[in-house]
């Protein structure tokens, strides 16, 4: 490169890629300056390389191993959540077969199922699992910026899970207050697990938040301050954008949960009255008095609503990448997608009280929060349209990954539309606390993100393990899960409309009997089948590890950096001798004039002068 060029500041040199798009005019030849990328400004990261089994696989500081650890532990708790949902469905569909279950058991299972799935499964899996594995690889760094802190983050999560599961074995069992843990009933006698159960739940959540904060700081600083040469924010894969924005949300939303959990612990243990109003019990006034139960609801939902997007945004990001790779087309409206993610993240802090329309708060609040809630539909709809436009006239590979993506779009739209019902106060009031709500949130933040997780597992397994998962088994897995999930949740909308309330242990002598009973049995059978269908994936993974087809380098012909490591699976330090240098965004698929239908992020402009690449 010439000295003169050097003087023109590195920043301009980066955007010198315009020169390559000058190739549009008939190939003006190679311009070496076009390949120039500003020199590295961050010093090479020193890494702690483990030598023993314990430092390599247990107390490991490699983000990839930590990611897998998070993934496995989150999946383990997820399976417990799944078994709990089976027990609930057994009670609802076939109460005579569930004689061993009392009402107390049922409430405990409902509570633990909800909390496990939302926090310990989905949040930990997306941010801890995919975040740890993918962020350093996708932004081209050697590891997370604070590997030691990252290790402590996982082990805090581990302890949080142990404490959570320990509550099954204490006197009184786990808490049965519902996953929202509303006081005063959460800590009053008569609610199952009102002593030790709720205490362990609060402690576990506080540990989770502490652990997550350590991880979250890592994800944020790695994205902001440790990208490789040429990797601008607007060249990051949407996966990273989704996880990054979700992490910001988590850093700002979890404090409310921490404070609420701490105050409830004090109400429970010390007998303070933060959330406890004056209560009469069997004619006697309890010691409590003067507190506000609504305050807890505000704190909880100030955490709880962003939490929905903490789960959804990484899913949005990941599915964008999967669709783009498997439709062999650039993502439609990349910048719009980024701003939609950021916009949804920002808006999610102003909608929390739409969970509280029937709590007795001031009705004007409902008006405000209904408006903000419906505004979120705009960026969300933009994303859905962009996914569909990415597919439009794409060179679609209808493999298992793509099936999960399509399943996600359909499910997400479905769950989003029922959100319009529940976002409006007047429609929400009659539907509150019915099965309609259950159908809505399971569709939109349960099944939809889960579909993305499944797609992501089939997509990135060749990277993590170096072998392809079996397609045929994958298709069985997809269709059983997809059709089964619809069999479970579609009828629930109807149950909600006829007024069947959620969280009821049984409703045999109620007037819903005639149409609800048969449907409940059907839903339960579907739930058993869908749960069992997940065994196909586990079998597939075990089988693949032994006899799967080797994947080799970049098996999906993708562009993003994680596929361009010198070894598959990537080793500690990720990149061998030299860090990659990025020249473009990760979505240059099917570029006219290119030899192959993909141009990797590390391909310098001088190698693709004859093509019509976009300037990114």
């Amino acid at each position, binding site marked *: 490169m010439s000295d003169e060029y*050097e003087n023109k*500041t*590195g*920043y301009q040199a*980066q955007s010198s890629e315009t020169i390559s798009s000058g190739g549009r005019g008939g190939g003006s030849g190679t311009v070496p300056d076009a390949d120039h*990328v*500003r*020199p*590295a*400004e*961050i010093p090479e990261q*020193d*890494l*702690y390389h483990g030598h023993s089994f314990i430092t390599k696989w247990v107390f490991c*500081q490699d983000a990839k191993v930590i990611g897998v650890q998070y993934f496995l532990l989150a999946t383990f708790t997820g399976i417990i959540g799944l078994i709990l949902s089976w027990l609930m469905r057994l009670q609802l569909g076939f109460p005579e077969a569930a004689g061993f279950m009392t009402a107390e058991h049922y409430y405990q299972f409902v509570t633990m199922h909800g909390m496990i799935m939302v926090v310990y499964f989905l949040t930990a899996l997306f941010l801890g699992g995919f975040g740890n594995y993918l962020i350093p690889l996708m932004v081209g760094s050697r590891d997370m*910026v*604070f*590997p*030691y802190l990252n290790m402590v983050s996982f082990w805090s999560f581990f302890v949080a899970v142990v404490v959570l599961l320990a509550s099954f074995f204490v006197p009184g069992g786990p808490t049965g207050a519902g996953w929202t843990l509303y006081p005063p009933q959460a800590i009053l006698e008569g609610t199952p697990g009102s002593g030790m159960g709720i205490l362990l739940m609060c402690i576990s959540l506080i540990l989770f938040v502490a652990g997550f*904060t350590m991880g*979250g*700081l890592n994800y*944020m*600083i790695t994205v*902001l*301050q*440790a*990208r*490789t*040469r*040429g*990797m*601008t*924010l607007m*060249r990051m894969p949407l996966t990273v954008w989704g996880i990054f924005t979700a992490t910001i949300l988590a*850093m*700002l939303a*979890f*404090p*409310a949960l*921490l*404070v*609420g959990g*701490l*105050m409830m612990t*004090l109400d429970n243990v*010390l*007998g*303070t*009255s*933060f959330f406890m109003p004056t209560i009469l019990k069997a004619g006697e006034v309890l*010691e409590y*008095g*003067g*507190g*506000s139960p609504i*305050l807890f609801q505000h*704190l909880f939902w*100030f955490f709880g609503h962003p939490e929905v997007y903490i789960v959804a945004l990484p899913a949005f990001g990941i599915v964008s990448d999967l669709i783009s790779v498997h439709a062999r087309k650039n993502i439609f409206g990349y910048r719009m997608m980024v701003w939609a993610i950021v916009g949804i993240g920002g808006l999610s802090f102003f909608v929390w009280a739409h969970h509280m329309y029937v709590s007795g708060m001031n009705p004007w609040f409902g008006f405000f929060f209904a408006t903000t809630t419906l505004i979120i539909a705009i960026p969300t709809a933009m994303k859905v349209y962009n996914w569909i436009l990415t597919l439009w006239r794409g060179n679609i590979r209808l493999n298992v990954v793509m099936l999960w993506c399509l399943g996600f779009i359909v499910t997400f739209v479905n769950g989003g539309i029922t959100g319009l019902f529940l976002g409006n106060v007047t429609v929400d009031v009659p539907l509150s606390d019915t099965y309609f709500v259950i159908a809505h949130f399971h569709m939109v933040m349960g099944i939809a993100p889960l579909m993305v997780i499944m797609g992501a597992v089939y997509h990135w397994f060749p990277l993590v393990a170096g072998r392809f998962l079996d397609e045929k088994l994958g298709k069985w897995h997809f269709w059983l899960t997809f059709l089964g999930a619809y069999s479970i949740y579609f009828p629930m909308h109807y149950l909600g409309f006829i007024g069947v309330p959620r969280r009821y242990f049984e409703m045999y002598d109620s007037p819903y009997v005639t149409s609800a009973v048969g449907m409940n049995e059907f839903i339960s059978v579907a739930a058993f089948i869908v749960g069992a269908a997940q065994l196909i994936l586990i079998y597939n993974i075990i089988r693949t590890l032994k006899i799967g087809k080797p994947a080799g380098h970049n098996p999906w012909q993708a562009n993003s950096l994680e596929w361009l490591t010198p070894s598959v699976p990537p080793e500690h330090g990720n990149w061998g001798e030299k860090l990659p240098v*990025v020249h473009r965004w990760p979505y240059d698929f099917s570029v006219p004039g290119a030899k192959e239908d993909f141009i990797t992020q590390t391909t310098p402009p001088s190698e693709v002068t004859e093509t019509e690449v976009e300037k990114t």
Partner: protein
Amino acid sequence: MSDPKIEGYEFKPGFKGMAQDTGSDQTMFKGVHWGKAMMWIFLLSHTFIFSCFLISYMKGRGSTLIDWPNTSEVFSLHVGSTPVPLLLIAIMTFVLITSSGTMALAVKYGYEKNRKMCGWLILATAIGGLTFVGMQAFEWSKLIHEGVRPWENPFGAKQFGSFFFMITGFHGTHVSIGVIFLFIYAYKTFKGHYDEGKRGWFTTMKGNYVEIEILGLYWHFVDLVWVFIFAFFYLW
């Protein structure tokens, strides 16, 4: 503060410069140490924690039906036989703010590689923090002696005791954690770990005087939070 020197990168002033930094590769905050950026974000998260506490306190105080105790009486100290309101708390606040000053000086001497001076100033900060925690313990024991408990309060609404002990306790815990780290850092400074770039335990991070600035950020934050707690509990 002058911009750091970065090869091949030219800083621009004002909003344009911010946009250019944001749009550039590698780092968004040019020349900012990873740990320092992390501490800023950690403190942002902590701002939300303390905001939640203080907003809950305002809500609790605003909605209770029993009168809130008269704070200038409850928190007064007797000098001889005349009650002096806010006496103890004024001293506590003064000590804590002063410790912020010594911390800032420690950061300055650290960057000047003045090991001795830096170490002594960190030690002074730690002693200031310890004094603060000690006086807080004294205030707690005085209130407990007078019958105030987290679950009851002879002077009025029981939420007074709950919020007071919880929020000052949470803040005091943060001060105590800060004091522990200040002692560790003073030891490391005197030992010269930051001069040599000694690596930490089980990690490859090298010692660097920037760590003192990072701890300083935490310490200033804890002081700032105290100013809010002071205003909300003692002056309201």
